[in-house]
């Protein structure tokens, strides 16, 4: 890392004076493709299921284009150097999710797609809000403990008596004025911000070597406090909310970020051991978890159950899929939410599912790349935490529905039906856009010295 910074500092100023590629034109072209794919998917659903073009196809195209245009224009104005690939991927994923939800609407006689479109509009509004009000990501690092507290508060909200709400056995919802939210989705982002801010401050202590064991430098015992605290917190969420997904995700993100901050692999090993220990404990204590593991080992103990139906759907789709509107994804329970990945795999086939996985991977790689390019440690940590956490979530949910790993309750970002998840993922993407803009923005010569003054101190302490 020090080497990288040295390289950055000694970089000849010449390329910075040349007008840098902002990529907004590329983004526009990609967005037109994305909207095209989304609209085509929406129309194909009706063609496949009903044999007609949906009467509101143009309205759909218009709405989607308007929301996308707003996002694009705000990027042009407020984050002109942002990575041009991020927004088109998000629009494509949202479009595929909307098409599948619409397809399941046709099967179930519901109108959830229009609700989801409304949520997307709200998501874009928050996206715009983040880009307008967070002009520099570093302001987010100012109040780590307050952010941490806020995150925790959001996490425990569903446990409160009146507003707390339980759906399908998972107590992760709150009900305010007839609308339900999953505050955990917001908590995740706020906690990632808090982790990044906290780790920037404490990483030097955490990086100090303790005892050496099997060729690995273990952290000092007294520095174990924070990770144990987060671990206990995650276990607490698991036991109280009866939901394995968020707790594994949260703890996993924390371990990844502590590793990025300290560059010590021992934290990862420690984290994995703690996950295993927690998993064993949860398997013994929480019935939900043991059941999930049983279904993972043999999905066919309930042939009409979630995992079995998901696998049948995927198999039915095969290589090329049944075509949108022509499969039977409605046979898979909660296909519009947790299992939307398998619903898409059924109708778009292995080909479509691979494309979706690669879109996620590309999005995560763009976030990680921003982390590499950024010069301030908070930004690096935040970008790595958001991007890796995002992909971890994708892995946990898609791995669960395709029976790679035991199933846990998490939403599939941008695809799943659900307002809180969609809106908060737009916020997450806004942060990634902001970070990538900062990463790719040519640094003004004067700014270089000021931004590195605080890190220059750590530079002295660091051994490697």
């Amino acid at each position, binding site marked *: 890392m020090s080497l990288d910074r040295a390289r950055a500092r000694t970089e000849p100023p010449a390329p910075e004076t040349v007008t840098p590629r902002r990529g907004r034109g590329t983004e526009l072209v990609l967005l037109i493709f994305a909207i095209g794919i989304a609209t085509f998917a929406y129309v194909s659903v009706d063609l496949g299921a009903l044999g007609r073009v949906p009467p509101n196809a143009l309205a759909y195209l218009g709405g989607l284009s308007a929301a996308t245009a707003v996002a694009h224009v705000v990027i042009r104005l407020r984050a002109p150097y942002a990575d041009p690939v991020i927004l088109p991927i998000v629009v494509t994923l949202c479009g595929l999710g909307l098409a599948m939800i619409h397809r399941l609407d046709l099967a179930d006689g519901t109108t959830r797609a229009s609700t989801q479109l409304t949520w997307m509009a709200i998501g874009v509004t928050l996206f715009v809000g983040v880009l307008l009000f967070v002009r520099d990501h570093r302001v987010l690092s100012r109040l780590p403990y307050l952010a941490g507290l806020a995150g925790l508060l959001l996490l425990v909200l569903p446990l409160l008596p009146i507003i707390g709400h339980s759906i399908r056995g998972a107590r992760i919802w709150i009900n305010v004025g007839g609308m339900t939210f999953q505050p955990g989705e917001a908590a995740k982002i706020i906690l990632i911000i808090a982790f990044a801010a906290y780790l920037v401050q404490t990483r030097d202590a955490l990086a100090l070597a303790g005892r050496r064991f099997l060729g690995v430098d273990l952290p000092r015992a007294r520095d174990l406090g924070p990770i144990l605290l987060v671990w206990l917190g995650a276990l607490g969420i698991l036991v109280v909310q009866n939901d394995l997904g968020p707790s594994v995700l949260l703890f996993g993100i924390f371990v990844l970020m502590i590793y990025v901050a300290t560059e010590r692999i021992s934290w990862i090993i420690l984290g994995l051991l703690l996950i295993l220990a927690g998993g064993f404990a949860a398997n013994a204590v929480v019935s939900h978890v043991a059941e999930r593991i049983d279904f993972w080992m043999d999905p066919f103990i309930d*042939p009409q159950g979630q995992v079995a139906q998901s696998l049948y759907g995927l198999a*039915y789709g095969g290589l090329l899929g049944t075509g949108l509107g022509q499969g039977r994804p409605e046979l898979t329970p909660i296909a519009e939410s947790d299992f939307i990945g398998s619903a898409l795999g059924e109708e778009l086939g292995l080909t479509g599912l691979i494309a979706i996985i690669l879109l996620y991977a590309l999005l995560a790689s763009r976030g990680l790349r921003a982390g590499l390019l950024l010069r301030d440690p908070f930004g690096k940590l935040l970008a790595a935490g958001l991007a890796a956490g995002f992909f971890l979530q994708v892995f946990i949910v898609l*791995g669960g529905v*395709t029976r790679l790993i035991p199933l846990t309750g998490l939403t599939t970002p941008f695809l799943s039906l659900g307002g809180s998840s969609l809106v908060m993922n737009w916020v997450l993407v806004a942060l990634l856009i902001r970070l990538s803009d900062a990463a790719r923005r040519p640094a003004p010569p004067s700014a270089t010295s000021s931004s590195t003054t605080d890190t220059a101190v750590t530079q002295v302490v660091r051994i490697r």
Partner: protein
Amino acid sequence: MNSPIRRISAGCLLLCVALLINATYVQAFWADDLNARSENRRVLLDEYSRERGPILLADDTPIAQSVPVDDEYQFQRQYPEGPMYAPVTGYYSYFFGRTAMERAQNDILSGDDDRLFVRRLIDLVTGEEPRGGAVRLTIDPAAQQAAWDGLTESGYKGAVVAIDVQTGAILAMVSTPSYDPNPMASHATEVQQETRDALAADPNKPDLNRAIAQRLPPGSVFKLVTAAAALESGDFEPGTEVPGPAEYDVPLSTNMLPNQNGRACADGTPTLTEALRVSCNTAFAYLGNQVGEDALREQAEKFGFGTQPLTNDDMNAATSVFPAELDDALLAYSAIGQYDVSATPLQMAMVSAAIANDGVLMEPYLVREVSGPDLVSPIERTEPEERTRAVSPETAQELTEMMVDVVENGTGENAQIDGIEVAGKTGTAQSSADRPPYAWFTSFAPADEPSVAVAVVIEDAPDTARDDIGGGRLAAPIARDVMEAVLGS
């Protein structure tokens, strides 16, 4: 911090590859197994929601058809005549598979057959729902009805096969007791399961097609084969006198083989014609020993023993057996259709049919043609095919005259039809002392210009005293009714 970010990126890439490999495994490699699992409702819905083609009789009456219904499966398989045609149609059950024609012609009926490929392409372009093709059988509804009535009216357990002697087309195929295939095609799993369990538990095996899939000792009807071998050998003629005492001294053995009534045939030296007329055991045991094991087996095989019939129709018919490596004692019993000789009703109908058709055995068949979903454009029509020359035309003529004599003056009098000459042979086969004998009859008509051959077997006749069970008494009237039905139509 860049090197951990790079490592994390590599980690994400690893997770991504794991997802891709797993998805490929599930959707490309595991998919066939998953699709084949019986509780997979997607495949079930697919299968049921396709309009399966009908199975039709010679006069286009459907005996299996798919009719639209107002549930999620869209089509219900129906068998309008139920049990009467069940041995032919079989059943179509999602959970327990398909049997008989539903199995043998599944590709045509479901529309998956390669010969329907162009049709499928057209459907794809025009947006028509794909439909299955139709299967037209050779079964004559009048003959089938006559055979069914004959067996069921007295509650017999048995089977009837009727064949068009000139083509080999099967005109009737009845097996009783039968079962109703309709509940096996039910959309309700429990109904299928219950029906299946009841079928499996029934000691009468109603789902066994006794006409083609069960071999029984043919007894005296096999004497036709022995007679044919004797005539073909050149050493015997219908008028040749042979020894026909009350008991035959079985070679290499102290056993005595008696006649059914315990008396000598004719004056003790009946002619061949007389021996057949009274179904003389001792004379035919003697004839078997005279022509020898090899000649008798060869003759049996020329009539179809030892070769599976109906393979073109893929109907899983049983292969009738003439036993191997006989000594003279066992040969004597085999010559009268006892010991290990066993034959299906279809086989015995083929013996009569070959004799009727100037000695030429036609390949039996059940499917007349298969056609596309529109029912008019035939895809394939079965051409009658010679299977073997069983006997010379002269022998065939002599056997015909002998068989006519059986019906006019002998054990087969119950098969007589007014104004039509009938040729036939009875059989009453003992299997073991603890069960009643099998009553057989095989015949053809008209004797001068034969068109139909029939074989009837009655395994069990409730309410009939053991001594009254005989081919002539029980089986011949059914054969007569079936022949009348064919000739009348």
